[in-house]
């Protein structure tokens, strides 16, 4: 999945800036505080402008032109965008990641929620070890995780194959055209559920335990506490991870890219919108159209997140 480390950074930047406006104190003090504020965000700001804003502006500029092998570069206006939203390759990829989001996000959030609720109930060394073990897949770089699964899925070397041979049956190849959806589902859930579990677990730790005591005094069972108290109280955290998961999954890239070479061609150059954009740019030399595809994907992600936040606006207080 694409990096979801970026959103928290952007949020923290947003948190810093509002602090800087002048407090009602003396003018000199406020100016100095202002300067100090800029000093501290300066390193971040340089990186932010150089590696995020500038490339975005440049890509937006590129997306307004078109370059043909035989014709050279010409101004295209919004033609590239019109082409993107009628391009079957882009639309297929988009449809795939939307379908994938609808399945993978609920799945990994459920796994994470179940694990977090269980870990919140038990204490002691076992809980600490279990927490670490569930979190561990997230600590493995996505590329390495995907390579590892590539080995596990391998029809010549993988354990799935070897176990099936024992029972004399043909192992399913989890990266074949019919199975790759599930093959990827497994890899992504394995990789990310632990991360979401930690976020939910942290939110659960933040709940005042006296509430549980009060509930127990009133005769609530553990299950009732979990469903009536814990889950409602951690909805902001849930909303947060759903947004992360949605953004990440719509930008699905690393796992199919890494597993592609052993998937017998199932991972086509337009498998997901991000893979399509990279193929366009780096293999077909269509940087202009690739920029337009990237912005179109960004637009779709933006709309999807906006819809999600609109739907959940009453429940989660995080984004209001």
């Amino acid at each position, binding site marked *: 999945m694409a990096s979801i480390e970026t959103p928290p950074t952007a949020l923290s930047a947003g948190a810093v800036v509002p602090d800087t406006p002048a407090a009602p104190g003396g003018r000199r003090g406020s100016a100095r505080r202002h300067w100090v504020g800029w*000093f*501290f965000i*300066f*390193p971040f700001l*340089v990186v932010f402008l150089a590696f995020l804003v500038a490339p975005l502006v440049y890509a937006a500029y590129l997306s307004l032109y078109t370059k*043909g*092998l*035989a*014709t*050279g570069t010409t101004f295209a206006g919004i033609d590239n965008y019109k*082409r993107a939203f009628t391009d079957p390759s882009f639309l297929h990829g988009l449809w795939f990641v939307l379908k994938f989001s609808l399945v993978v996000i609920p799945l990994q959030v459920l796994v994470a929620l179940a694990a977090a609720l269980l870990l919140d109930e038990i204490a002691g060394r076992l809980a600490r070890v279990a927490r670490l073990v569930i979190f561990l897949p997230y600590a493995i770089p996505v590329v390495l995780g995907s390579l590892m699964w590539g080995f596990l899925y*391998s*029809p*010549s*070397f993988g354990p799935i194959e070897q176990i099936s041979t024992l029972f004399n049956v043909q192992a399913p190849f989890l990266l*074949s*055209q*019919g199975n790759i959806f599930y093959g990827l589902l497994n890899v992504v859930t394995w990789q990310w559920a632990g991360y979401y579990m930690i976020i939910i677990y942290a939110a659960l730790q933040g709940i005042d335990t006296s509430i549980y005591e009060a509930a127990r005094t009133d005769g609530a069972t553990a299950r009732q506490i979990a469903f009536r108290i814990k889950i409602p109280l951690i909805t902001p955290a849930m909303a947060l991870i759903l947004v992360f998961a949605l953004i990440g999954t719509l930008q699905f890239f690393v796992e199919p890219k890494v597993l592609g*070479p*052993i*998937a*017998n*061609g*199932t991972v*086509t*150059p337009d498998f997901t919108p991000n893979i399509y954009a990279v*193929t366009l*740019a*780096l*293999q*077909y*030399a269509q*940087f202009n159209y690739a920029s337009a595809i990237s912005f179109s994907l960004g637009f779709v992600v933006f709309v999807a997140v906006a819809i999600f936040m609109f739907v959940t606006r009453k429940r989660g207080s995080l984004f209001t």
Partner: protein
Amino acid sequence: MRFKTTLSVVAPVVLALGLAACSGSDDGGSSGSTAAKPTNCTNKIVKEDAPRVLVWAWYPNMAKVVDNFNNQHTDVQVCWTNAGQGQDEYSKFQTAVSAKKGAPDVVMLEGDQLVGFEIQDALVDLVPYGANDVKKNFSEGAWKDVSQGDKVYAAPIDGGPMALIYRTDVFAKYGITKPPATWAEYAADAAKVKAAGGPPFGDFASNVPAVTTALMIQKGATPFQYDLSDKQNIGIKVDDQATKDVLNYWADLSTKKQIGKEDQFTTDYVAGMVGGKYATYVSAAWAPGYLTGAGVGNGSSKGKFAVAPLPQWDAASPVSVNWGGSAFAVTSQASDKAAAAKVALGLYADEASLTDGWKTQTIFPLNQTVLKSDDFVNAKVDFFSGQTANKDIYIPAENAYKGAVYSPFTVYYYAQLQAQIVKLNAGQTTGDKAATDLQAALVAYAKTQGFTIK
């Protein structure tokens, strides 16, 4: 609280130091007084003060080839990097061409990639740098493949005449006494082995679209008509009967599970080759070298391989086709084009390198001196258990090869063909429909690129 304060002060400092370190090393890299000398060479530079030419290439014996060149030259030195094999390298080169910086001085390209870079003005005409002096070393066809009119864009190194590599142990076990001479016999043998519970007879891999293209051409297809002097016009014909027949033929074998549909060059595929999972391998003359490098032909699979001429559609009028084979081109980003051309024309052109190349079967040399030498002609090839494969199979195939015309968007064409092969293997399309869809996709693409369809 105290801890927090320390952290927030330290963090920017560390970051600033990190940035300083980055820019510092950057300066170090380009502080040379003249134009930046490539320093990140895989090989040893023999003559330190000679100008360096940065070369991208992936021949398995490249280290030896580069050392041979550098030991024999004092006026120029090769600085070699392996930037990936095939498409991996082309992607990097394409990006460098688009960025107008970052390309090597000399780049290894397969014949089917040349025109795609020529049209972008990424390659330099080598005629002013003495290309015609080495013309006599090559056959007319080989020279034509690297030329456009009077211009020569690369120095040919190796070709890829195709043949049928097969497993003698599998053939013996399933009672196939002689290798199939026609595709009809090939299909019959495949059915026979399958019926006897044998392994897949071959492989219809999606990731080697160049092979499928060669087989289409063998049946009489002419996928592209293109000439750089008529830059805007292109002829595309991939929905002819020959293409449909070839796609139908392989899709039929594959859906009947008589052949495999695994991608080639993967670890799984190589393991299958070692373990006798495939009875035949339709491939080029350079394949044994790559297979040997991957561990095939040693240990349990030693002495199990032999080679036969490529099966024909019509045994009475055989057609010879080619897969791969590469050339060295000078890029237009090269700062010292004369030095770069000297490398392109001289690298892998010395006798020691060529001999090492053909003896390890990593190249099928195009240099006529080698092609006609007794050593080469009569060589008993180890991989094929002492068969005189050059004399019997590969030299006749190379001599009969007529050359091919490629499109300026080979990468796109291969990607589309690959997608169709995946569908064919999954039984989701027919050869006829695949050819029609392919034609439509290519025509649409050519139009977006500003070409006029002839």
